[in-house]
């Protein structure tokens, strides 16, 4: 019988097969090709190595950057928050002591760890990639098996370059059809999560397949794989194809010469065999998909933007009903309110989900020549210093600034508010990030997850809006690029 993509990558990394069969089997020991490190989940792991007198086994397969705590303003000054500064300084000292490559704040390669890896060409098809961050699933867009790990596992990878893992089940997410203009990768993944639920992917590796996925750019595929964890799946994957290779070629760490040819030959084998079977298959129709937004406090609580805020009575399951009641109260929403009537205070364009160059481009295309709603605060936070440079070279910074948005330096920023970029209690945000949990973006803050184009249209109108709600402006035509 054939193998799925996930099984092929898994099998190619088994250092030692676990003894036993079925439910009683011990985990396999898998080799890890790339370990990404940031300041929040690593200090205790480095400390563990130090206490045990263990070296970091493969510094040449490890790379660190600073992202969660870093300010997005005044980055040339010392970090004002003492605990944030301490954590950053701990990372710098640890990287120096153990010999780990580090891209610090101010460096051209600094940025959100999941933006940095791919743009350096370090994320490649068929690899195993881990990081002490649940959004490591992002790298699955290249056909890598990429997953978030806890700090104990970070220490384990540092010491052994391996992870003990039990095999996952496999789930195919089939997305067939053509997205309409204004409908994007973010809408696909929000719709998938609403369909299977925040626990639907638990224990599975998701493989996104179908014509709608094939038509997506790498930036868009990363958006989708990024939020696999929001469906409970530790990893999500897309089989590599010409789009992947075109993105890879010429990147600093992409293979060259004969190595490139050998790599492509291998990468071409990385797809699910026709006679392979998935444990579960889920279908989504791209043709009829509309822009999707969340109304509640978990990423599965989403609806089409044209719909209304649901009522707890709409949910059959008692737990879902109770969760909806609580969510509506926290979000300050009444059932039956059209989503498009919801007025927001802040628009956040950023995060490892949607802060890449294409995300900035499509948002800029919408606001160009239009005026921002005067009551809206809009933050634009590029995913990496390099994305920021690229955007500035294209003049996008000027478009955002002319519109009245704040053009910031790279980092995780308001996605989780570990730096000063936070919502005030009760403040409502249309956010291109990945989690609408209570207090995620700041204590008492209310988050609606949206795509970059919905974020941009919302900044114009002041209420949750899709690009099609905007009156046509001379320069503000939608490119229709599927991101």
């Amino acid at each position, binding site marked *: 019988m054939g193998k799925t993509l996930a099984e092929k990558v898994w099998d190619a990394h088994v250092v030692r097969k676990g003894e036993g069969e079925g439910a009683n089997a011990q985990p396999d*020991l898998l080799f890890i090709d790339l370990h990404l490190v940031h300041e929040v989940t690593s200090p205790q792991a480095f400390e563990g190595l130090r206490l045990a007198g263990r070296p970091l086994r493969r510094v040449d397969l490890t790379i660190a950057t600073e992202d969660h705590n870093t300010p997005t303003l005044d980055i040339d000054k010392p970090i004002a928050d003492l605990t944030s500064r301490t954590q950053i300084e701990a990372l710098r000292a640890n990287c120096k002591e153990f010999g780990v490559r580090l891209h610090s704040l101010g460096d051209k390669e600094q940025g959100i760890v999941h933006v940095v890896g791919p743009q350096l060409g370090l994320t490649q098809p068929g690899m195993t990639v881990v990081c002490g961050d649940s959004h490591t699933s992002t790298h699955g867009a290249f056909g890598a098996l990429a997953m978030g790990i806890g700090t104990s596992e970070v220490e384990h990878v540092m010491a052994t370059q391996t992870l003990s893992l039990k095999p996952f089940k496999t789930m195919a997410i089939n997305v067939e059809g053509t997205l309409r203009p204004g409908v994007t990768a973010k809408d696909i993944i929000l719709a998938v999560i609403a369909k299977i639920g925040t626990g639907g992917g638990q224990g599975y590796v998701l493989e996104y397949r179908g014509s709608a996925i094939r038509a997506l750019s790498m930036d868009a595929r990363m958006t989708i794989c990024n939020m696999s964890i929001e469906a409970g799946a530790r990893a999500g994957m897309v089989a590599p194809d010409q789009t992947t290779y075109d993105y890879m070629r010429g990147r600093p760490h992409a293979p060259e010469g004969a190595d490139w040819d050998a790599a492509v030959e291998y990468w071409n084998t990385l797809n699910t065999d026709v006679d392979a079977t998935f444990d579960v298959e889920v279908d989504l129709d791209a043709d009829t998909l509309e822009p999707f937004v969340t109304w509640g406090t978990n990423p599965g609580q989403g609806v089409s933007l044209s719909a209304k805020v649901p009522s707890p009575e709409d949910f059959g399951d008692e737990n879902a009903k109770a969760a909806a009641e609580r969510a509506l109260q926290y979000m300050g929403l009444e059932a039956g309110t059209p989503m498009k009537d919801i007025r927001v205070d802040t628009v956040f364009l950023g995060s490892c989900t949607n802060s890449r160059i294409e995300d900035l481009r499509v948002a800029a295309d919408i606001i160009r020549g239009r005026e921002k709603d005067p009551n809206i605060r809009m933050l634009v936070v590029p995913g990496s210093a390099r994305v920021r440079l690229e955007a500035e070279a294209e003049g996008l910074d000027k478009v955002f600034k002319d519109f009245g948005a704040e053009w910031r330096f790279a980092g995780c920023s308001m996605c989780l508010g570990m730096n000063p970029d936070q919502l005030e209690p009760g403040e409502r945000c249309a956010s291109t990030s990945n989690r609408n949990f209570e207090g995620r973006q700041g204590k008492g803050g209310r988050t609606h997850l949206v795509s970059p184009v919905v974020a941009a249209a919302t900044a114009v109108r002041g209420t949750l809006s899709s690009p099609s709600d905007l009156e046509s402006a001379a320069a503000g035509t939608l490119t229709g690029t599927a991101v």
Partner: protein
Amino acid sequence: MEAFTTHTGIGVPLRQSNVDTDQIIPAVYLKRITRTGFEDALFAAWRKDESFILNQAPFNAGSVLVAGPDFGTGSSREHAVWALKDYGFKAVLSSRFADIFRGNSGKQGLLAAQVAQDDIELIWKVLENHPGTEIKVDLVSKTVECGNVVAPFEIDDYTRWRLLEGLDDIGLTLQHEEDITAYEATRPSFKPKTLPAKVDAL
């Protein structure tokens, strides 16, 4: 890691599904660089509400948390497990755990016991009707006992064995270092290395 066989302590009913790791420990507490001292951070936002269960005696002295489905979703932060442990919890009961949270628990000796939702409902009733009732969690027999409710729980055999023995993962893996070295020798040359560092000129 300390070995875990059985534990008996006050049960805390947390009638809520999708308890995500941002609720268990908000991000602002993740700036610490120590592995202990997170007890004040546990459910920090919810604990500001006086009616929250952990603000009520005898539940504030609880050590077995009984939560709704999909516990520990979201972020990979192991701090969530550290905070639960530092507060005094030895076990969490839920009908479904997020994968990363469950893995982190197993590494740190916090027992994540998967109990059927019907049994969770029964345990909730006992704990609410008789606050202070103790729950006995027995990893040897894979059962929980609370008042007149006795329920089985699921945990994978490997994690159970490691918990019972109190084994350190890294030590176990390094017993197979020869296998790792042998694997490393077979990796193709096209696989990338982070060193020496390469960057674009721009």
